[in-house]
């Protein structure tokens, strides 16, 4: 691969690492180190990786997170922040230089330029000679030409493929919990349709939010922000995912599921996305958006909106609040500057109360499950520990209202949901039990008939 000659793949990779790190937090550090070592062995190491290491160094070091914890890469920085960033840059660069001769760069010219840049940056302390700055800036300009081999990665980021995968998982959970015999084709069609619908919705969301995403650290490396894809192509991609997705659901599964899918896309793109900048009620609308996929899974299996579907939707709805409120707690500055109306910014007390309220509601909803004959009574008992734990973290968040408690609650919500769904599935009331119960009431005649027949 001629990637070594181009700077963009390593930079794109580094950008992805940084985005990933910022998104998933410090816990993911070990995985990234492994990946980094693997890439280093491929001899694609460049200055961008050292930059990445510097960021991780900063993030890990400043456990006590105040306003200046994470140096923002390209945003407006006060003079103070810039000088601090450069101090750390100098420190790390002095560490790095002894290592660099060991790694033989594949593309000598580009790496020589970069090593020269590093040394100069160390010497001059940030104000590189005009020529170095010029060539560096010049290389940051990219031609807006779509390369076909970049397209899959770009589309994956455009459709927020990881979030889509989680959405498909919750829809599958809804399908699995439905009290009907398992139909593989229906399951696959429903999952595919839901995935396509989710891709479409996410792409339209990114299409609407380009200038806002540019200004927030979490989202500034999205494809439309970086100009890797044109808005027209993003819309066409969304249409080419959404239309087949909904058609698949409506025609291949059942019309109810298709209608729910279409409604969910509408809710997310036309209600939630604009509302983010208008009123804090957007969080509740967003929670409904998250609750619909398991309902879709259920209706795909059974064809009707039962109480069970609504319960599953209710569990997902309640889960959204501790998850999102905890996440948004650390992004208050970005939200405020970008003009987003979030509870964490305008009504911080309400934000924490609602998160706690819904953690406790999860316990209640888990108890309702056996009442509705979806699971056995072991489910509320087994799920009680994890529900109590997330409620405890929700209470800590409510009381302490600081960054560490919000992060703990957020990370807990990430494993709490899959575990809850898994426990729910394992405690699912089997069809056999239900049939036996049914026989007791009305099947005796049948059995008696059987005996009488010769």
């Amino acid at each position: 691969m001629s990637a070594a000659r181009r700077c963009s793949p390593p930079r794109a990779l580094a950008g992805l690492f940084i985005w990933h790190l910022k998104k998933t937090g410090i816990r993911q550090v070990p995985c990234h180190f492994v990946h980094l070592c693997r890439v280093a062995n491929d001899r694609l190491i460049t200055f961008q990786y050292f930059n990445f290491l510097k960021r991780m160094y900063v993030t890990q070091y400043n456990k006590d997170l105040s306003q200046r914890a994470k140096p923002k890469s390209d945003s407006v920085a006060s003079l103070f922040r810039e000088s601090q960033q450069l101090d750390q840059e100098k420190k790390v660069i002095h560490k790095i230089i002894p290592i660099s001769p060991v790694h033989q760069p594949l593309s000598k010219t580009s790496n020589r330029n970069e090593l020269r840049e590093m040394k100069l940056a160390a010497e001059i302390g940030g104000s590189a000679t005009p020529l170095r700055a010029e060539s560096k800036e010049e290389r940051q300009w990219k031609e807006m030409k779509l390369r076909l081999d970049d397209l899959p990665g770009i589309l994956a980021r455009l459709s927020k493929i990881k979030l889509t995968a989680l959405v498909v998982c919750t829809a599958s959970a809804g399908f699995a919990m439905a009290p009907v015999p398992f139909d593989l084709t229906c399951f696959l069609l429903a999952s595919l349709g839901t995935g396509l619908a989710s891709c479409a919705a996410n792409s339209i969301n990114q299409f609407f939010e380009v200038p806002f995403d540019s200004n927030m650290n979490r989202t500034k490396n999205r494809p439309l922000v970086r100009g890797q894809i044109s808005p027209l192509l993003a819309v066409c991609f969304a249409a080419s995912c959404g239309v087949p997705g909904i058609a698949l659901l409506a025609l291949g599964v059942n019309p109810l599921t298709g209608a729910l899918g279409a409604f969910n896309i509408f809710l997310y793109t036309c209600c939630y996305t604009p509302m983010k900048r208008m009123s804090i009620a957007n969080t509740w609308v967003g929670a409904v958006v998250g609750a619909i996929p398991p309902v879709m899974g259920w209706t795909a299996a059974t064809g009707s909106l039962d109480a069970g579907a609504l319960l599953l939707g209710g569990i997902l709805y309640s889960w959204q609040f501790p998850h999102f409120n905890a996440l948004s707690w650390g992004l208050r500055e970005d939200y405020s500057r970008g003009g987003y109306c979030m509870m964490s910014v305008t009504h911080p007390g309400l934000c924490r109360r609602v998160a706690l309220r819904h953690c406790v509601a999860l316990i209640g909803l888990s108890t309702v499950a056996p009442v509705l004959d979806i699971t056995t009574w072991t489910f509320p008992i087994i799920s009680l520990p994890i529900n109590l734990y997330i409620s405890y973290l929700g209470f800590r968040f409510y009381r302490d209202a600081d960054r560490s408690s919000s992060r703990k609650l957020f990370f807990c919500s990430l494993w709490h949901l899959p575990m809850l769904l898994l426990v729910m599935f394992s405690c699912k009331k089997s069809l056999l039990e239900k049939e036996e119960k049914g026989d007791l009431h009305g099947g005796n005649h049948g059995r008696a008939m059987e005996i009488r027949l010769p």
Partner: protein
Amino acid sequence: GKSPALGGRLRGSAVGKEGKGRVGRSEQRRACAAERLGGARGGGPAFRPPAHSRHDWIGPPDRLSNLRPVIFHVPQDESALERRLREARQDTQAWNQQFWAQQNASFQQEKEEFIYSRLKAKGLAVRDETGQKATLNAEEMADFYKDFLSKNFRKHMRYNRDWYKRNFTITFLMGQVALVRALRWLRWKKKNVGN
């Protein structure tokens, strides 16, 4: 020796580096780089795309607005529709740049003022012994964020509405241009196949 144009473009220390009277390969490369970054010192667009390129070029995020500037390619045979599209995009880019640069600058400034006034009210110095700026904790900053958001609410609403309108217009124009180009290509193909 060096041509006067070359000497004129290579400003500052760039010339001194290579010594006088020697136009080596590296100097030519640097000359091209300096030419491309022509207006840098003068404050104009800092980058000029290579002449053979037929695409737009997108740059690093702007320091003030965090938006990435785009240099639009003007083709020789630009149609009226294509010109309308390009002008719409240029106009939106300038408008966005102006809004966000002003927004971020005022946010930063108001934030500093808020921190300063709060620290003063608490009787603390702005910089502590080590020379680092003192900061407020997240709870205290929350008051500022809430205030900033409510103060600028109407401005944000107006910006929202305008941004959605512009975004749709540009994308629709892009669609029209793409359609016209596709039809033109099909007609050309048919003509060539016919021949």
